[in-house]
């Protein structure tokens, strides 16, 4: 009974994680603020102003078109733009009602909407042809940050967008691999201190074998993610190199096991190699990437990971995902271990 409870818990957690991960909608965000190379007449200023198209992702502007407010902000200077019309839920036509001399060229675009709340598009507007006057100021329009009125949703991140769901697969898969390789490391140490206990050898082999699967899955999900966010299936990055080399090192462990006939000798040689492999794993995935520039979040000064961590919606799925994947990994490890022991019993039969 005790043995089935935690397995059921793992499966339940993973079912919860998969359901939430793929069913919960993504929060709204701003995709683009683009110049459509046209002018449009402004009703508030009685002149023609450049026409811009504001494109949102997952927004609900047509539910309450009159309430959409668009602002641009540079440093502390805020300006309101005129919303000419809302075309549909994700598109609005905006008139660039700005004076000719401006304090800066680069502007953040902000919107306020009762459903979507306050959204920000960083450096969404760049005006190269304006006269720059650092002293240019005007009275700021009233702007109140709006929390929005949406249900449970994942936060919108620029460039990552829908692939943020991969956070529940990619990261816990690597964590699980770490756990399994850690089990292998401890088993190898125990084997070297007491070589008679062949069970430790089977433990080490089973954990590395299962951990390798998690490593390969971590590589595949990471590759998918890299294709979407960085534009290539594989990029030259310390974290990625480390991940691939880790998988190769542990494949070497499996090769070494195949190469040795004698059982006692095999257990000892592979334990020695396994200790080396784990040390290299720690160096590659936890030490080296911190000392070099990296695109990968959480490394090389990239703050991406902290932003995810802070969001409560992601945390509500991410932590159960870690526990669920780890329980599954341990279950797979135990089944593999039992298979090895049964096979050994069969071999020993007369």
């Amino acid at each position: 009974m005790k043995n089935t409870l935690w397995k059921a818990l793992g499966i339940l957690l993973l079912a919860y994680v998969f359901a939430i991960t793929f069913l919960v909608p993504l929060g709204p965000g701003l995709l683009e603020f683009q110049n459509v190379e046209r002018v449009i007449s402004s009703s508030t200023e009685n002149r023609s102003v450049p026409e811009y198209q504001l494109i949102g992702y997952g927004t609900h502007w047509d539910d309450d078109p009159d309430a959409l407010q668009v602002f641009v902000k540079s440093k502390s200077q805020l300006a309101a733009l005129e919303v000419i019309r809302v075309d549909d839920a994700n598109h609005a036509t905006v008139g660039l009602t700005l004076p000719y001399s401006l304090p800066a060229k680069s502007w953040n675009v902000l919107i306020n909407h009762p459903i979507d709340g306050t959204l920000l598009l960083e450096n969404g507007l760049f005006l190269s042809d304006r006269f720059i006057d650092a002293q240019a100021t005007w009275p700021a329009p009233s702007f109140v940050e709006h929390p929005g009125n949406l249900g449970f949703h994942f936060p919108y991140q620029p460039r990552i967008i829908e692939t943020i769901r991969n956070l529940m697969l990619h990261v816990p898969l690597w964590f699980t691999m770490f756990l399994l390789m850690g089990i292998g490391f401890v088993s190898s140490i125990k084997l070297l201190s007491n070589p008679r206990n062949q069970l430790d050898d089977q433990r080490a082999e089973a954990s590395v074998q299962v951990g390798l699967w998690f490593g390969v899955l971590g590589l595949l999900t990471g590759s998918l993610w890299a294709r979407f966010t960085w534009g290539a299936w594989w990029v030259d990055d310390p974290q990625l190199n480390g991940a691939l080399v880790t998988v190769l090192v542990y494949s070497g462990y499996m090769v070494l096991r195949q190469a040795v006939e004698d059982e006692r000798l095999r257990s000892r040689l592979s334990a020695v190699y396994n200790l080396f492999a784990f040390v290299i794993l720690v160096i590659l995935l936890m030490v080296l990437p911190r000392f070099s520039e990296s695109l990968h979040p959480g490394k090389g000064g990239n703050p991406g990971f902290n932003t995810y961590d802070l969001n409560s919606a992601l945390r509500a799925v991410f932590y159960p995902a870690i526990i669920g994947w780890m329980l599954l990994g341990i279950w797979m490890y135990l089944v593999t271990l039992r298979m090895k022991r049964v096979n050994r019993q069969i071999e020993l039969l007369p």
Partner: protein
Amino acid sequence: MSERMSRSSAWSRYRFLTAHAFRMEWRQKHGLAGLLLFALASVYACYQVAGGRASSETWNALAWVVLMFSAFNAVAKPWPEDSEAMRKYLKTTLRPGEWILARMTFYSAILSALSVLIFLSFTLFLGSEHFNPRQGLSFLLGLECTALAFASLLSVLSAIASRAGAGFGLTAVLGLPLIIPIVLISTRYGTDILKGILWIDTAHHLLFLAALTGGIGALGFILFPYLWRD
């Protein structure tokens, strides 16, 4: 012999073993000659591929690759001590830690000499227009540090492979992935030097290499007795 060994100190046994390794190597000269030939032929093949006008990136990449493969070639040769009878005899006369240290020292010396040779032949064939003498010396220093790191790792791996009785192929399979962290650090150092970055600003890579060498050496020293056991 065994009488003398048991009364001698660990330090003198280590010195004897190291000197013995060199003496054995010197007696059968074909091993050393093969090593030299392999390194020179690799450099010459690089020269044929890249021509005399290799860019600094190509120069850098080829130098490290040649050093890496020469290092694997250097440890490929089986030792007489790897044989079952010899190991059983040595076990009664000395501690395994002394033996692995001697082996590491021997490989360090061989690979250091080899890296100087590779560097000189590279400047001869592929040209030295990418660096001034000062940068050249810094690059050579990087090669030396890498050679020591390779020696400490590959001594243990070749010991594992020879104990497994599987020969050179297994050393390569086990060693190539494990050696990549060292190669990553070294190539970054080499790139920095050839880019003209001041030595002091990239010297931390050498510290990493030294730490790796020390760590791997210590791990090998601790674990090697387990390889020797029956």
